[in-house]
């Protein structure tokens, strides 16, 4: 579906000179510096995948997505979407992709949703039968009929996003870009949107690239994640893999029968202590939970315990920060 090889995008930026005279000189002769927004990235996404695309702000996410959409021309490298080169065949490519931007709606602001959908139907030349079929689908899955006659500006955020989803999928694109679609949405609406995303991915085999800062979205919805930072892909693999590779740390949460003084165990560090509960962090390759439990219970009687998986968020943060050790264990 998507094939990206050694993709690079560089921007030229005017170098700001200091001081008054510096500014004046810039007026007459500006000097430029080259900034690589995307630096030699390569990946491949097959049809039907649901990929989470994450990275800190300014990492190169929107730049790479713009190139996939054909809006931006790469500086070098190869990029192919379903057999087309996006920037070379922009219009043709637009027919096979759809996009939802959380920050900005595609719909016309002051007119009822259905008017926008009608216009999109005609712009994308969607056959009438397909159009009707999709509207029914959206009525079922998104309750579109509840607000289709309302102007977009009067919709709640959740409704607006649902309308944007309908608009993006109206022409049955093979590839869907979701750019932070759930910012500011309440938990109930989020759950609903997540289900919708999974459903169309499953039933219609729509390939989806989801950009988000919310790790819960990733954990619940995506099978694979790509992490981009400073223009490089620093991780590309499944969630399970990332936990195995990077999340060596587990936490053992022990609740004692009564409050006990803090203590340490060999191979386990006490990271938190609250009332009768204590959190121990251990490296699962070095210690097994049962050994740890046995040791701890021999000291004090245990009331309850749990083993916590490493949080994706923590792992990702570590990767962003480029920490050696954990992050470099098995290579990317």
């Amino acid at each position, binding site marked *: 579906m998507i094939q990206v090889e050694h993709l690079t995008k560089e921007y030229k930026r*005017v170098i*700001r*000179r200091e001081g*008054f005279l*510096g*500014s*004046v000189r*810039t*007026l007459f002769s*500006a000097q430029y510096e080259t900034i690589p927004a995307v630096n030699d990235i390569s990946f491949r996404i097959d049809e039907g995948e649901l990929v989470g695309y994450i990275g800190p702000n300014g990492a190169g996410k929107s730049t790479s997505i713009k190139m996939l959409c054909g809006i931006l021309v790469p500086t070098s490298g190869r990029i192919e979407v379903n057999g087309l080169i996006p920037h070379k065949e922009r219009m043709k490519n637009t027919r096979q992709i759809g996009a939802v931007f959380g920050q900005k709606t595609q719909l016309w602001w002051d007119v009822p949703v259905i008017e926008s959908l009608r216009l999109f139907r005609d712009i994308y030349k969607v056959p009438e039968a397909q159009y009707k079929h999709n509207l029914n689908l959206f009525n079922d899955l998104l309750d579109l009929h509840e607000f289709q006659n309302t102007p977009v500006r009067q919709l709640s955020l959740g409704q607006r996003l649902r309308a944007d989803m309908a608009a993006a999928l109206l022409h049955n694109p093979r590839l869907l870009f979701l750019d932070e679609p759930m910012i500011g949405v309440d938990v109930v609406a989020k759950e609903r949107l997540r289900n919708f995303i999974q459903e169309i991915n499953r039933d219609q085999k729509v390939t989806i690239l989801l950009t988000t800062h919310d790790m819960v979205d990733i954990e619940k919805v995506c099978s694979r994640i790509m992490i981009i930072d400073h223009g490089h892909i620093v991780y590309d693999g499944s969630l399970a893999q990332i936990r195995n590779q990077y999340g060596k740390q587990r936490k053992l949460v022990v609740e004692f029968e009564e409050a006990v003084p803090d203590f340490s165990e060999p191979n386990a560090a006490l990271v938190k202590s609250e009332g009768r509960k204590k959190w121990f962090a251990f490296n699962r390759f070095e210690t097994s939970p049962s050994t740890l439990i046995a040791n701890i219970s021999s000291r004090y009687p245990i009331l309850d315990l749990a083993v916590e998986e490493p949080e994706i968020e923590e792992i990702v943060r570590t990767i962003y920060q480029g920490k050696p050790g954990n992050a470099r264990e098995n290579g990317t």
Partner: protein
Amino acid sequence: MKVFLAFARQSFHSIAIYRFDFWLRVSTVLILMYSIRWVWVALYTQRPGAFGASLEQMITYGVLSMAIENLFYSFGVQYYMSQQVRSGAIDVDLLKPLDFHFHMLARNTGQMLFRLFIMILPAILCGYLFFGLRPPATPLAGFQFALALFIGYLVGFHLEFLLGSIALVTLDIHSIDWAFNALLRFFSGQLVPIWLFPGPLGTLASLLPFRALFATPLSIYTGLLNGEAIINAVGLQLFWLAALVLLSRWFWNRIQARIISQGG
């Protein structure tokens, strides 16, 4: 004060990035100075007595009015405000521990200062060398001109600020801005000196704040206003400045409260 300078400096530097914009404005000013000279010559030869001034004075008036053009509408405060509210970024501005009005003034002034040194002073020089712009009537008049111009600048800023605030309520900046610009061009005396206005229109023009931007400073420079008349004119400028500052602050405070309560 330091904050003021910080914003001013930031605005100052950002202009240099927009080189094309800069050169476009510079060439336009030159073309306009050239054109207006011809207009005045044509009008003057038609009927020399109409102006109550010499041709040299009128040419100076006209050419100088084009040169100082860029002192105003520097930053487009009204557009900035409209854009910030539409994109929601206004919240960021409001969260700063800084008075919004003051903040805008600082940004605007930064740009204005840059334009002053880079565009306006060179334009005046060109006007003098090529287009018949004469030196001020007296050195004192030159100084008074600078003062009146500065006050005029402040009046212009507050008019734009007020405009921006109003546009936030009505949501459409463009028609209002067009109307405002039309009124400004008319009543400011930039294109047609307001003493040419017939009867009641002339009286109206002399009372409105718009003349503070062009007519007053330009008349002082060319010596068409002197002595007591200057004091009256500048007094009117100051009156309007005070009124506009108060009005701006009052209006803006109300809008700010509204924005905050509605969440943008």
